[in-house]
């Protein structure tokens, strides 16, 4: 019998339609990690809502969480759809899938502004440095000097998704690599518990159009150049914090999230403080100089108010189930209003 999670569901309950992405596409492995993360977190699939723009990456939601609602929107417009939709029932968790073209080209504005509003959303940029679905044009994250078949050589400095997020004062910024599934999964779990927009820039190779060994978005380059900031663990309940066997005090940092869950970060090379925004910027700059793929939780600010916190909304019932009596002003107000008109 298939393994069940704490709420009695099997992994099959979290699957979606069979993928139509290319074999080996990084996006497929992100899909798998999302499925595992939601399964392992014991969340009913109905408590997750999927969003995406347009692109191969944005097709991903079809191939996971078939029992979750999903909205595959317009190119570059995932953030706005998600923002509006999640107000429908603020108890749900939103997962947004986007691509580097979707978020850094046509969607740059919405990407920056959902961050500014800190709308709770697991915002994944499946970053392959290329336009997959339209067959291999440069995206804004393409390497400078990258050569693509029909496009020539890219002369532009790439957009750095994490740097952009930090510049916009994002409250959760991480970089990962589809070739590092464990880290991807841990980050997704943490992101689902973060109260705010969680930006996950996941390098996700496009095997059809941008997987040359020298491309920084390729498997080979990633495998060779990945450097992790820290070993990560996510603990759904902070009270239960049990350090992994070998961990010694001082080697470990712990970030507690608004719901009592915690991220535990074990030192690898150097001590890295993920609540220091400026340190995060410096780390990105250094990684660029050193030509490495620096992955991990770059920055987190667990306590900034999220967008819904700015409205004093009832919490006893989901907003989309609120009955007429609570939405329509009572008849006696009509006279008062008319009086106000002069």
């Amino acid at each position, binding site marked *: 019998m298939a393994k069940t999670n704490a709420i009695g569901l099997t992994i099959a309950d979290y699957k979606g339609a069979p993928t139509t992405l290319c074999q080996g596409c990084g996006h497929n492995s992100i899909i798998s990690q999302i499925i595992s993360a939601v399964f392992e977190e014991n969340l009913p699939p109905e408590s997750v809502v999927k969003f995406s723009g347009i692109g191969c990456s944005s097709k991903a939601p*079809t191939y996971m969480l078939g029992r979750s609602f999903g909205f595959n929107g317009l190119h570059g417009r995932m953030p706005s*759809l998600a923002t*509006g939709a999640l107000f429908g029932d603020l108890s749900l968790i939103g997962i947004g899938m986007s691509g580097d073209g979707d978020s850094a080209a046509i969607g740059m504005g919405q990407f920056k502004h959902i961050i500014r509003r800190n709308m709770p959303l697991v915002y994944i940029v499946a970053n392959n440095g290329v336009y997959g679905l339209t067959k291999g044009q440069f995206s804004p994250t393409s390497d400078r000097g990258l050569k693509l078949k029909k496009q020539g050589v890219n002369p532009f400095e790439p957009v750095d998704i994490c740097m952009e997020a930090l510049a916009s004062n994002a409250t959760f910024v991480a970089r990962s690599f589809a070739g590092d599934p464990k880290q991807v999964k841990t980050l997704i779990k943490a992101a689902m518990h973060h109260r705010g927009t969680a930006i996950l820039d996941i390098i996700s190779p496009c095997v059809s159009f941008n997987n040359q060994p020298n491309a920084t978005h390729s498997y080979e380059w990633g495998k060779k150049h990945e450097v992790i900031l820290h070993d990560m663990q996510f603990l759904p309940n902070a009270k239960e914090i049990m350090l992994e066997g070998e961990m010694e005090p001082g080697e470990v940092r712990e970030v507690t999230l608004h719901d009592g869950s915690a991220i535990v970060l074990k030192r690898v090379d150097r001590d890295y403080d993920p609540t220091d925004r400026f340190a995060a910027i410096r780390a990105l700059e250094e990684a660029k100089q050193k030509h490495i793929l620096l992955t991990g939780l770059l920055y987190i600010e667990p306590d900034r108010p999220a967008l819904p916190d700015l409205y004093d909304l009832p919490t006893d019932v989901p907003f989309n*189930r609120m009955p007429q009596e609570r*939405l329509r002003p009572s008849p006696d107000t009509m006279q008062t209003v*008319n009086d106000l008109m002069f």
Partner: protein
Amino acid sequence: MSTQSPTSSGTVVNDFSITVGTVNGTGSQTSNLTILRAIFKMGIPVQGKNIFPSNIQGLPTWYTIRINKDGWLARREEHEIVIAMNPATVKEDMEKVVPGGALFYADHIKLPIERDDITTYPMPVKKLARQSGAPAKLRDYVANMVYVGVLAQMIGIDMDKIRAALDFHFKGKESPINLNMGVIEAAAEWAKENLEKKDPYILEPMDATKGYIMADGNTAAALGALYGGVQFVAWYPITPASSLVETMNQYIPKLRKDPKTGKNTVVVVQAEDELAASGMAIGAGWAGLRAMTSTSGAGISLMSEFFGLAYYAEVPIVVWDVQRGSPSTGLPTRTMQGDITQVAFISQGDTDSIMLFPRDAQEAFEFGWRAFDYAERLQAPVFVMSDLDIGQNQWMVKPFEYPDEPMDRGKILWEEDLEQWEKEGKVWGRYLDVDGDGIPYRTVIGNKHPKAAYFTRGTGHDEFARYSEDPEVWVRVLKRIKKKYETARHILPKPVLESAEGAPFGIISFGSTHPAIQEARHYLKEEKGIATDYLRLRAYPFADEVRDFIADHEKIYVVEMNRDGQMRQLLQLFVPDMADRLISVAKGDGLPLTARWIMNTILEMEEE
């Protein structure tokens, strides 16, 4: 036109127009509204129209107040009384005055009076402003109160009513009320002592505004939406739509506190642009909230792609288009009915649109709440086509009426409904036409039933919301959606018909042209003996009654405020067999149509 024949005593009572020419950003709006409201409180039918420039401060601006005892309140082109406060325009302002009319002007303006057919009244504006004791930075503002006082004295506006107007404006705050009242009274006093009434225009109290309120359409729309139970609003500032949501923000604390928890039941987000505003609203509508956005022309263009998604994915959303002078950035502070065909054919591919056409502030309130019922019932975008004239000017209208129907949330299935369906062996598919009306059933997020979820997309999909590129599926779904719009025709507000005995032709119009049409019809009848039938459209796609009306007339004038006769085009497509009966009477110059222009244009065409 409006006759203005002096009474026996040589006076013209309650039937003239006042135009005030000032510089914008000097607070003259308060003065003008005070005059307007005081007259209204005197029981005299009155309407104000603001003709203002697209900047913040320092340019010429005009405010026209029409006073008409018979209740004809459309814009007129004649100005019986002109108040000239702006040196830059005083010459043209003087030329505006009708022979026999009066010009009030600030006496520091060097003005060679070139006309002897009008009365001129200089006003010592600076002096009186100085004497008011108001601080220097308020001088310009106070100067504008001077003309209120002088005018009040010279045409007979009740001081009590002026105080009532100020009291309303300043929400009862004593100190500004007294400051302003002081200036006004001093000015009136000065006028009484120094000016001799020579023009014939005077006011006399009436009882004709009882049972009416004064409201602008944007406020009405905001209130209507709040009574419609709107839950989510996303917007981006744009003239002349901005005040719609800004006003809503003001009323939310008063009207939308949850009776159970005391918390708010509306979310308003100022988006970073119109693309995001429409995206957020569509997201919210999809999630089961009553969602809307409000914008004007440029915003509609930017939202085009999203409207196509909402159309094809069948998401309810209400869109207020407060139309302004277009194409392009056009005349941002002028009115027009210019986005009709654009909205009708919005977004790539075959689409359909639902449009509502409110007549004035009162209907803006009504459509404000009803629009959500239509959107949720039909699972489609509903465009409310207002305009700057409706939205930003004060309209004398019947009080807003509390919704006479419960909220129609449309075909939503919750957990228990799905269980019931399962029990009955009924199959649910997001895009299945179960009832034969083209409208499928939908579920929304948070529904915990394991079969409730579906995947929404703008790409081809079948009745179960599954991705599909099958040509037959594609055609079937789009045909079914078309059926929904056929259903819409029967649900939406019917046109309003006014028939007259022996009418040689019909008139079709919609929206803010209504008062001008009615007035034109009145003159046609009274002065030319021509009775007319009149159909006022309130919704698109058109109801059968529209076809009937056209069938009943050999000739129909379609009156509208744009260049190309856009509504006529839609009507021609609706009745191709009678397309040539429809004659366009169209002008889009940024100003509300006048009865005189409508009548003359029709008469000219009749002669041809």
